[in-house]
């Protein structure tokens, strides 16, 4: 059972930022990665198809009740919130949008902080929203690691700025540095 996770939230500018981050991770990556990217509520999501060929880790859309596995990146499906259960299973929800977003970064980050406590690494990337700020604060408060893209390097600085303001314990860094840090997370235990 995998009861830890890297959780990543991104909005406007996400594809470019994730293109620098996800392909940098090694094939036998020891953590599962959960991603919320703000996308329109169409039934199809292009993100897993876009990133899978570029990455050494496995990339797929998150399915309800699926067990988390290390070395796999799970994208939240369009029009559903993504959450994790304490037993390391994924859960979807069609509840109301949060801050006009479904999927919502806050919903994912809150549930990861609740389910896995200090064994969570939260990352806020570029975006024009304030989504994720409150969630990152909760991850830090539960003892997890809080990271944000350096707003100066972000295509849209608003989202990492909001996260850094809400979560003073968060560290800001450029994408190359973020990629190196994520790639060096320990094989076992917490970050």
């Amino acid at each position, binding site marked *: 059972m995998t009861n830890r996770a890297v959780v990543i939230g991104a909005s406007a500018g996400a594809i470019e930022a994730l293109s620098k981050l996800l392909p940098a991770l090694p094939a036998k990556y020891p953590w599962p990665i959960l991603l919320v990217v703000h996308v329109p509520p169409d*039934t199809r999501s292009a993100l897993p198809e876009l990133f899978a060929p570029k990455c050494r880790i496995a990339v797929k859309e998150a399915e*309800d009740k699926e067990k988390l596995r290390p070395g796999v990146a799970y994208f939240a*499906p369009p029009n*559903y919130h993504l959450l994790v259960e*304490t037993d390391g299973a994924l859960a979807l929800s069609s*509840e109301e949008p949060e801050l006009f977003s479904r999927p919502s970064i806050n919903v994912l980050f*809150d*549930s990861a902080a609740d389910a896995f*406590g200090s064994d969570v690494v939260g990352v806020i990337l570029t975006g024009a929203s304030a989504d994720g700020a409150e969630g990152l604060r909760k991850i830090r408060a539960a003892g997890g690691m809080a990271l944000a893209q350096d707003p100066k390097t972000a295509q849209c600085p608003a989202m990492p700025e909001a996260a850094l303001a809400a979560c003073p314990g968060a560290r800001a860094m450029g994408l190359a540095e973020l990629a190196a840090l994520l790639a060096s997370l320990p094989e076992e235990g917490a970050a």
Partner: protein
Amino acid sequence: MRSPQAETEDIELRLLLEAIFQKYHYDFRGYSMASLKRRLSQARERFGCDSFSKLQEKVLHDGATLPRLLSFLTVQVSEMFRDPAYFLCLRRQVIPHLKTYPSLKVWVAGCSTGEELYSLAILFREEGLENRTLFYATDINAASLETAQAGVYGLDRIALFTKNHRESGGKTSLSDYYTAAYGGAVFDKTLRERAVFSDHSLVSDSVFAEMQLVSCRNVLIYFNRELQDRAVGLFKDALVRKGFLGLGARESLRFSAQAGAFSDFARAERIYQKEGA
């Protein structure tokens, strides 16, 4: 490692669900915990309680609390013709099968505030099947059923409903089915002439009729696996041989113990067909 506070809250939450079950016989113990905890945290705030234990005390001692709490325990988010591709697939691929039956029964399980029931009633009218069909719309939330029975929706939602209806292959104009009054869209009451609204729990009740189509969308995601298996078992028992089961856009039978009883009918639209026995 989880925080001690999160673990304590989980204990309190399980005790709250046990209290609701023992006192009111509503059983939420098999619901997916992550989203339920989230909704009940919102309820805790709304009721001014600083812990789930305080909320439990309130539920046990103030009878007016439970009906209000039900709207947090269940999810009422719905829209007409949600995921138009699902309704388009029903129209083009399922309806031709249904036309071969002299009479039809359709079960909208977990109908919430009724948007899906009216969507199906309109679709069946457009396809000429309405007069031979009986619709069952069931939910555990009495307030939602009342809203469903009234058939009045906010005018601000009509643009989305209209767009969805058009994309679902609608042959008429959605405006043919409602009149605007008092800031709401009042749907034609003849649409529900052939509908029975009733209180039914997928957790504790049994099958009540033989169906050709069961539509249960975005309900199973709120259940744990055991409860999902129970609900899908009910659908299996309710459906005639070769009957159809429609699920939400991101729901599947893949992890279900009952998967073997169904075959994929339209994989992308999440429509399944009961295997012949």
